[in-house]
């Protein structure tokens, strides 16, 4: 962990910030009980909380509802939880690339709610901003609109979509400090900062943990107030789903 040095004369009375550090993934997920609703950050396998998923797997937690854009692949990401039948329900926008998922879905073991990707993002955001519901045009005139309230503003139709209500948000950041401040890298950002704002309890695993004062306040994507527990993850595999290169 990097240690900061700041101009003590400039600050001249340090009011300590709020320490969020936990020892490891097992400690971070210790109170996740069977039947919990989890938000899990990531897009495909990019920016997923690898350490926490492994810790939940080892802990044996089951009957989970998972809100996550995707459901991983057979042997990685949320796919690991699916393999062991720990997931009761997935709320996602896209769930391809996973045979076990498909088997459980078709056999009726797994409940799946598919929603537009923007709606997934907005429902997280709504929770983080204290908005009970938002309006979106996505899905108007489609089966997604079934049973939903719709309303016309300025001649255009929108669906009313409610804020998510998740017990835990589990996110993965690039850097973080012990006050819970987070910075994400490239497209590994995706749903992570939105879910971090939305969880009743937010758990963040980071590639590099530093002391408060190292990260530039203007560069922080997720202020520490949203994060309840943080730890430095280890052995990140960062698997690539579609390695595409040019010569």
């Amino acid at each position: 962990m990097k240690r900061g040095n700041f101009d003590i004369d400039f600050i001249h009375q340090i009011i300590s910030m709020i320490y969020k550090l936990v020892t490891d993934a097992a400690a971070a997920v210790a109170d996740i009980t069977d039947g919990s609703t989890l938000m899990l950050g990531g897009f495909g396998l990019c920016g997923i909380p690898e350490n926490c998923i492994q810790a939940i797997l080892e802990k044996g937690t089951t009957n989970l509802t998972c809100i996550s854009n995707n459901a991983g692949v057979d042997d990685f990401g949320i796919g690991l939880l699916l393999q062991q039948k720990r997931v009761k329900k997935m709320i996602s926008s896209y769930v391809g690339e996973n045979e076990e998922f498909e088997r459980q879905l078709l056999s009726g073991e797994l409940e799946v709610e598919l929603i537009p990707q923007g709606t997934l993002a907005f429902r997280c955001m709504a929770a983080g901003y204290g908005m009970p519901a938002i309006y979106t045009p996505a899905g108007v005139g489609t089966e997604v609109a079934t049973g939903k309230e719709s309303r016309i503003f300025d001649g255009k139709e929108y669906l009313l979509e409610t804020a998510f209500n998740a017990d835990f948000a589990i996110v993965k950041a690039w850097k973080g400090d012990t006050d819970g401040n987070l910075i994400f890298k490239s497209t590994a950002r995706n749903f992570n900062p939105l879910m971090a704002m939305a969880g009743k309890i937010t758990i963040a695993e980071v590639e590099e943990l530093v002391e408060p004062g190292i990260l530039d306040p203007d560069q922080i994507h997720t202020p520490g107030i949203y994060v309840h527990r943080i730890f430095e993850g280890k052995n990140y595999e960062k698997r690539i789903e579609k390695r595409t290169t040019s010569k």
Partner: protein
Amino acid sequence: MLDKEGIAKRIAKEVKNNTYVNLGIGIPTLVANYLHEGINVCFQSENGLLGVGHFPKEYAVDPDMINAGKQTITALPGASSFDSAMSFGMIHSKKIDLTILGAMEVSENGDIANWKIPGKMVKGMGGAMDLVASAKHIIVAMQHVNKAGESKLLAKCDLPLTGKNCVKRIVTELAVIDIAPEGGFVLIERAPGVSIEQIKNATAGKLLIHGDIPEMAL
């Protein structure tokens, strides 16, 4: 009877360890000076900063770093800056543990009026309506009576409201008072040297007195 510093000192005792706090302008700002040893607090300024520090030394004044009262400030290690929507987003999603603010009037059901006096120039509510609408816990710091000697603790507010049913506790120069869930001002503590009679006389709304009322320890 307490002076402003005394009110701030008493409120400082209400601030719990490891909490996020928003301080209004005036007496609430003074609370930061009296926090007890070992109480870790992170102050939010609703114009976009978590981790507000003390005022800067003259050489370190930065026009880009101000608090919601437009005063120049510093940021502490661990601070983060953000836009106004995220700032009020964290207020409305109840991430702020405690809001301390001033008031012109509080009613016995927890309504608060602190932004507008009809007939006088109205400056606006700023962030006050947002803060009172969503705070988990609101403590009002104010004088018990106004300059005309009239009680500011009323059965019903006369002034236009800032928010309804939101105040939990009031600290004045005379007393600590809670709002009862079913309505009414519950007397919790007397200021040093202040009698129950004095508090009764200064309270226009329904004052509830259960058992012995201790004197404040500061």
